[in-house]
């Protein structure tokens, strides 16, 4: 049965219409409409906002702000976001990328959420109708946070300088495949090549993207060499609970994580 769609010109009105539960915000719809088509009766209606600000990309002074309705195709097409294009380009096929939004990706359960893995490594800020949060806090509270703060209106982050950001998605089917695992890393080095900062994010290692904090700690003060990263490779799986799905078992994902992490670091 079709569900009613309510359209509002402002995100504040859309946020208000969502309160009370049951209704689902409609971004690109690639997960919500899919769930309804599959018979998810928890969704009782759709709400969307046509606010223009939601579809805009701003890149000023080294910082990017992507409206929540910006699509993966828009990210791929934006020159200033070329460091992130490889992450956006690996999401679904062309038709999915034309609708899959940054906002929707923040809520996607594993094995989806590849772009959010990238945003987590970049330490993005999530902006709501009412206030903002860092992405770590957002991910911990994402089931309830929009009730309090309204819909996500944008994400912002410092655009990584070339070479600082690394991204790897492993899938069985190429070019369009669901992730076995996803790894994103933002690695800062000092003049001597010693790692001064590291943020590592993992996809498929929990029901949502998570940080690899033990590996981050092990990397700081080391060099990006086989011996320098060995300690981080040993602990990359710490705190993870990989998912099991038709693509791979939890056991398999845990086994291959250190292998792919090592490759990404030494690439």
């Amino acid at each position: 049965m079709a569900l009613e769609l309510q359209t509002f010109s402002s995100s504040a009105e859309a946020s208000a219409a969502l309160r009370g539960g049951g209704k689902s915000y409609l971004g690109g719809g690639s997960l919500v409409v899919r769930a309804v088509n599959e018979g998810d009766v928890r969704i009782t209606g759709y709400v969307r906002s046509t606010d223009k600000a939601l579809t805009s990309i701003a890149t000023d002074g080294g910082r990017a702000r992507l409206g929540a309705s910006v699509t993966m195709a828009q990210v791929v097409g934006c020159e200033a976001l070329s460091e992130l294009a490889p992450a956006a380009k690996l999401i679904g096929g062309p038709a999915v990328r034309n609708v899959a939004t940054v906002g929707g990706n923040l809520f996607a359960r594993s094995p989806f959420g590849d772009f959010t893995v990238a945003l987590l490594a970049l330490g993005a800020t999530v902006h709501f109708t009412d206030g903002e949060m860092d992405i770590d806090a957002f991910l911990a509270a994402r089931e309830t946070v929009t009730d309090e703060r309204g819909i996500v209106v944008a994400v912002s982050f410092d655009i990584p300088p070339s070479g600082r950001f690394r991204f790897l998605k492993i899938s069985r089917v190429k070019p369009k495949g669901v992730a076995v695992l996803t790894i994103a890393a933002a690695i800062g080095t000092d003049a001597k090549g010693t790692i001064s900062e590291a943020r590592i994010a993992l996809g498929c290692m929990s029901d949502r993207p998570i940080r690899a904090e033990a590996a981050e700690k092990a990397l700081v003060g080391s060099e990006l060499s086989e011996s320098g990263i060995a300690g981080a490779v040993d602990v990359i799986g710490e705190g993870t609970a990989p998912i099991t799905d038709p693509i791979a078992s939890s056991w398999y994902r845990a086994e291959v994580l250190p292998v792919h992490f090592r490759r990404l670091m030494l690439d």
Partner: protein
Amino acid sequence: MARIPVQFTLNGQEKAEFIESGATLLNVLRDRMGDTSPKGGCQQGTCGACSVIIDGELRLSCLTLAETCEGATIETAGGLANGSELHPIQQAIVDGFATQCGFCAPGMVMAIKVLLDAKPAPSREDVVEAISGNVCRCTGYEPIIQAVLSVSRSNSQQAV
């Protein structure tokens, strides 16, 4: 539920209908507008059989709500042929035996059309990427890729 009006251009013709709010474009095209060329395969965004072109972009009609297409220009496989004369993409698929059961073909040709409209002489890699969201269980894809490359070769010959 109250019906709501929706208007768009479908394969060059103005269409206006009263539809159920929240109805998918796939259902509206097939059940209300008589265009059965987009196929409902999975309704999950996975097979691409329902692919159509909305305002020049490849889209999955099973995941698109019809009322979000108000005022849009929609193209489907049903509008490609000119009378009995097939569109060059369709003809290349027939000539190259690039369709067997035919279920994927209406979506596949739309994915190919978007590619060739933007890039008349694509590389093999471009073709693979362009049809990566369209599943074909019969052909093994190679005949489809070859058919697209043959259209692209005749495009470049015409350009000379």
